[in-house]
């Protein structure tokens, strides 16, 4: 499934300064029972966001109207644990297009890029600056520039570059996905697979 193209995103951000945010927190297992991809945003961070009686927890950031935007900023080791792509779907469905952290779990990072969310890995020091900027002004805008591979805090002009491999970058900028690529090399794969040991 092709997805939206990602080039330059300028937006305020939602801060979640917690380390080791695992995919069970992003979307608990009991909400994985759909057979389509719709509606997962309603249960994003379900148990941090709502009480047992479904009333919102006032102290959770998604329930605080002063924070909004298309960028989610998380603490170190974001997206650890289960391989459930539903975690990335929930983040996307809620409205985020970019997640910023100083460290991502591998599978979450792959899953995000496969559906058109850009994971931006920054240094611990820059992550700290981002959290500080949002703390100072909840509307502080970040500019994420994929073609240039930079992230900038617009209020201060502080900027850092981030890594992404050329193939994935090309896909995200153009809204292509891996299956398009794999389909185009089908004969090569079949020939390889037929002479493989298993």
């Amino acid at each position, binding site marked *: *499934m092709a997805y939206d193209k990602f080039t330059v995103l300028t937006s305020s951000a939602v801060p979640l*300064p*917690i*380390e*080791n945010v*695992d995919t*069970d*927190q992003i979307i*608990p*297992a*009991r909400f*994985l*029972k*759909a*057979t*389509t*991809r719709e509606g997962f945003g309603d249960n994003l961070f379900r*148990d941090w966001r709502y009480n*047992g009686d479904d009333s919102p927890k006032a102290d959770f950031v998604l329930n605080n109207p002063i924070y909004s935007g298309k960028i989610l900023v998380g*603490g*170190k*080791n974001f997206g*650890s*644990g*289960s*391989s*459930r*792509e*539903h975690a*990335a779907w929930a983040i996307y469905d809620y409205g985020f297009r970019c997640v910023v952290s100083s*460290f*991502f*779990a*591998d*599978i979450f990072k*792959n*899953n995000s890029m*496969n*559906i058109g969310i850009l994971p931006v890995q920054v240094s611990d020091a820059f992550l700290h600056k981002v959290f500080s900027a949002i703390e100072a002004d909840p509307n502080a805008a970040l500019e994420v520039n994929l073609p240039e591979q930079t992230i900038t805090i617009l209020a201060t002009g502080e900027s850092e570059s981030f890594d992404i*491999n*050329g*193939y*994935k970058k090309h896909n995200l900028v153009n809204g292509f*996905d*891996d*299956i398009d*690529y*794999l*389909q185009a*090399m*089908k004969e*090569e*794969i*079949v020939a*390889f*697979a037929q002479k*493989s*040991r*298993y």
Partner: protein
Amino acid sequence: MSSKPSTLFDKVWDAHVVRDIQDGPDVFLIDRHFIHEVTSPVAFLGLKNRNVGVMFPERTFATADHNTPTINQHLPVADPLSANQLKALEENTQKHGISHWGLGNPKNGIVHVVGPENGITLPGMTIVCGDSHTSTHGAFGCIAFGIGTSEVEMVLASQCIMQPKPKKMRINVNGEMHKGVTAKDVVLFIISKLTAAGATGYFVEYAGSVFESMSMEGRMTVCNMSIEMGARGGMIAPDETTFNYIKGREKAPTGQAWDDALAYWKTLKTDEGATFDIEYNFDGAEIEPMITYGTNPGMGMGITELIPSAEDIDAGKASFAKSLQYMGFHEKEPMLGKQIDYVFIGSCTNGRIEDFRAFASIVKGRKKAENVTAWVVPGSHVVEAQIREEGIYDILIEAGFELRQPGCSACLAMNDDKIPAGKYAVSTSNRNFEGRQGPGARTLLASPLVAAAAAVTGKVTDPRTLIA
């Protein structure tokens, strides 16, 4: 082939690269693909939308495990959403000609238990599944790891995924292990040292006498939890223990094919002089029965130790405090003696026959504590049959336990097996995340021996005090 010394990981990886994309991932061939009811429906939907078929249906195997009930499996599944996913798996596999061991099938069970049990998992394979504990199959010298649903769709459509080659880590554990220390303790110990993110970006090879002397069940337990320190996967070189386990299993090669396979499998080891990006060494004699006190698997400690203080931890202080608050624990207090409410033995980590033998060795001649609710859940029907044949069932019943039917169960609580909010569960599963075993549930990860000791005493107990 080049004569340069190479690692087990390189040998298997390099044999599966269809195309090396410049400044991009490798197009990586997958030998075996496992699917289950939860992470596959959207992948099949994607195929339908693209009007693409399954390239090699005989290389994919389906089983139902994540949301299945562990009692009354002969009745229709009560939860309509779960029933819908199970129906989707049945229909999708039927439509595309994929083998399906659904609920009620004698081969049904947890995907990472039934794969090896039936000889589907063989040394040198690349194996993926939409489940992070696919790393389990690394116990056979496979490159095996969890993938997302987009990648499930890729494998169905093209038998390949796009993967950048991870870095290489070797973890050596040598020395004599003490009585009462199991494979689960070894891996919880390693994760406690490396932290929950300590191996992110790496593929791990486990080496040394401790793994060489482990059973296949033990090796599966270790490789299973590789993901809990962030590793892409973990693997152990196949040896006689591996070959003996595989021989005679339903889908294992026979006759000349066996001899040919064996000759290849014997080449699957890291050459002398091959190098790793990073290497760790631990002494097996330093490991004691382990238990976790926090909300990620890196927050583990020896069972006789004290919970560390924030000062001792190289991690965010706020996250550490939040974790202890969730668990209702305090810095510097012991875990021994803490009253618990639930015990869960099962899961793809510890749901194999050896695990139930260990559990029964402590339970035998004792009674389940009054304050404990215990869920004893085999990993497959084959394991369940073994439990009955070996007399473990009688020991369990005698001690006041019940045996449930196979499935993932309380490991992720997608079915009705949920630990209530605020309750403490000693669990042989793999994750102690907040709410993992039910909203508000508090999980203490441990080995089957520690779980058994807790089940009969009603509190956190050193199993060594109960071993004759």
